[in-house]
């Protein structure tokens, strides 16, 4: 194991963390402000990727794809909110879980009917299609740096909105005590719809950005959704800063764990035993981390106060 490899894995962990942040940010806002568990967040990410496939096939240009797919993702999110979610805000968390789980099943099948079951493809945009050699023999696609950059830009944008604008103030207040905010005269319904739409758009944006490097297929949002929930639980529900820090931690721990767990076990086990234990341990690592953090800080690392 060399320093170069370690640095490269750090970069990989950072990139996974930023991607998780893009997805977790919308999820934590919705959960924090509206107290609404939205399991359907993963399919919104998947829909973003599928919309990217369709619009790229139509326009052949990634910039236009982004411009067309983002509002479409927003529109789809708002549609689901108006049709279904709006009626669930007052209901028990379990009802919300059931309903949004149903949405996962429905959209996964729907996507298969519309686009087919086979994995689909979006090529990396020409401007970013280069690579840099970060290690002898290993190229790092510039597009991954673009993903990191866009994730950091979104983080800064969200921080600016949440801390320095009126609507951000209302969102923060809503995360702490929504009924009080309503009693103070803020139109909570419109606020909720805005937050939800923005969250859906963030998830769709993450889907559009990863479509060139990952397989676009039915069910692609499901594994990501679980990681996103781990992130917001670690970071503290309702907190953007928590989502950011939590995402980076999960990304780094997961990547470094997968890369080096077997090597670490090889220090005190035989090679074949290490190969059995290492990957299994690496896949458990983030959940162990979540358990430890919850034990020490039950509300997460940066909880929205008053919860």
């Amino acid at each position, binding site marked *: 194991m*060399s320093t*170069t*490899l370690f640095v*490269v*894995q750090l970069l*990989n*962990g950072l*990139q*996974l963390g930023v991607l998780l942040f893009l997805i977790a940010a919308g999820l934590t806002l919705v959960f924090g402000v509206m107290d609404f568990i939205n399991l359907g967040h993963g399919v919104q990410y998947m829909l973003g990727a599928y919309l990217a496939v369709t619009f790229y096939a139509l326009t052949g240009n990634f910039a236009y794809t982004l411009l067309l797919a983002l509002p479409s993702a927003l529109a789809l999110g708002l549609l689901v909110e108006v049709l279904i979610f709006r009626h669930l805000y007052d209901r028990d968390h379990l009802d919300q879980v059931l309903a949004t789980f149903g949405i996962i099943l429905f959209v*996964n*099948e729907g996507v*298969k009917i519309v686009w*087919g*079951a*086979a*994995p*689909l*493809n979006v*090529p*990396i945009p020409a401007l970013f299609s280069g*690579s840099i*050699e970060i*290690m*002898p*023999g*290993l*190229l*790092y*696609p510039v*597009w*991954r740096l673009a993903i990191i950059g866009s994730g950091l830009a979104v983080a800064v944008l969200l921080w600016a909105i949440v801390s320095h604008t009126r609507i951000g103030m209302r969102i923060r207040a809503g995360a702490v005590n929504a009924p009080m905010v309503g009693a103070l005269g803020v139109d909570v319904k419109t606020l909720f719809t805005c937050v939800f739409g923005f969250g859906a758009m963030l998830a769709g944006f993450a889907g559009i950005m*990863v479509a060139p*490097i*990952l*397989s*676009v*297929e*039915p*069910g*692609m949002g*499901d*594994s*990501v959704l679980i990681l996103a929930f781990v992130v917001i639980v670690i970071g503290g529900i309702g907190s953007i800063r928590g989502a950011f820090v939590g995402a980076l931690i999960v990304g780094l721990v997961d*990547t470094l764990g*997968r*890369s080096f767990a077997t090597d670490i076990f090889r220090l005190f086990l035989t090679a074949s035993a290490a*190969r059995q234990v*290492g*990957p*299994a341990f*690496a*896949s458990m690592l983030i959940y162990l981390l979540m358990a430890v953090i919850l034990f020490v800080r039950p509300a997460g690392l940066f909880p929205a106060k008053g919860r």
Partner: protein
Amino acid sequence: MRKFGFTAGLVASVALMSATASAQSVKVGVMLTLSGPAAVLGQHARDGFNLGIKHLGGKLGGLNADVVIVDDELKPDVGVQKVQALLERDKVDVIVGVIFSNVMMAISKPVFDAQIPIISPNAGPSPLAGKGCSPWFFSTAWQNDQNHEAMGKAAQDAGYKKVVLIAPNYQAGKDAMAGFKRQYKGEVVDEIFNQVNQLDFSAELARIASLKPEAVFAFEPGGMGVNLVKQYSQAGLAGKIPFLSAFTVDETTLPATQDAGVGLMSGAQWAPNLDNAVNKKFVADYEKQYGHVPALYAAQGYDAALLLDAAIKAAGGKVSDKTALRDALKKTTFTSTTGKAFKLNNNGFPIQDVYSVKAVKRADGKYATEIVAKVLTDYKDAYAADCPLK
């Protein structure tokens, strides 16, 4: 009185019709994975099987083919439920299924107990090839380890001294590595297990690059394969380190990986460009009807139809005698899409050649695999010796 006569006549004629109809038809229960991320494999197998029946004029062995298609949803418990419905409610004469080995292991007991023949167009788990073999089991595909062994032999023949293996951390992944190592005698520098349904392989690819092997062997079915292949190419490894694989690079994933998959090698018993009359007709009609290139799952489904046709003919059309049908399935032969006479081993698995194939971009812009070399000739699987059947 007249009403009674009329009703009696109606009932008698209906009874006569159904009696003659059932004497002239064979009921086939087809169970495949048709939903979820892996649905595309089941769809290829189903479309290949249906095309086979179409080529045979809608008949199998001269009897009308009455096909019932069900979806096992890649869930063993759903598979067991639905196969019991096929056996008890639909009273099928033969079952064609399934795609995935975990479902196969679950349904094998009810099917073997009912003494109904089952033809697998894909799944070939090792227990059913070895000690758990049954005279009711037939495969038009392969035993799961065969394509991995072919790549191991190809790596050995090509003289690669250091190889890295990568597979998902579940039973099929471990079997893949074991199959590869059975034929490969060089040094396995590392065995990397990734998580099932893993999306991002950048950490694993960085590790592979740092180890500098002479070749990589990967078993990554479905979306995992698409991700690995795309990222392998993006990481600049595609031209530098030869990529050997099984069930990772084929016509179900090439439409998604496109140029990233070109040049990568795979082990398979079939490719669309196998030059024989049966295969040429199959591939041409499949592409015309379905609009995409068939994968090996489709050819395996097509061969299942041809096998049923030949066996029913050999059994004289008497599908109610299951033992006769079973024996006919074991002994009969036909020219399969591989171009050779189909031959089964004692455990019901085919004895066949296995090739190394390469992904290419065809002149018409579609992506397909093409034969490179024959790696294993008339190969019998590694578990047949443990099977007590003759």
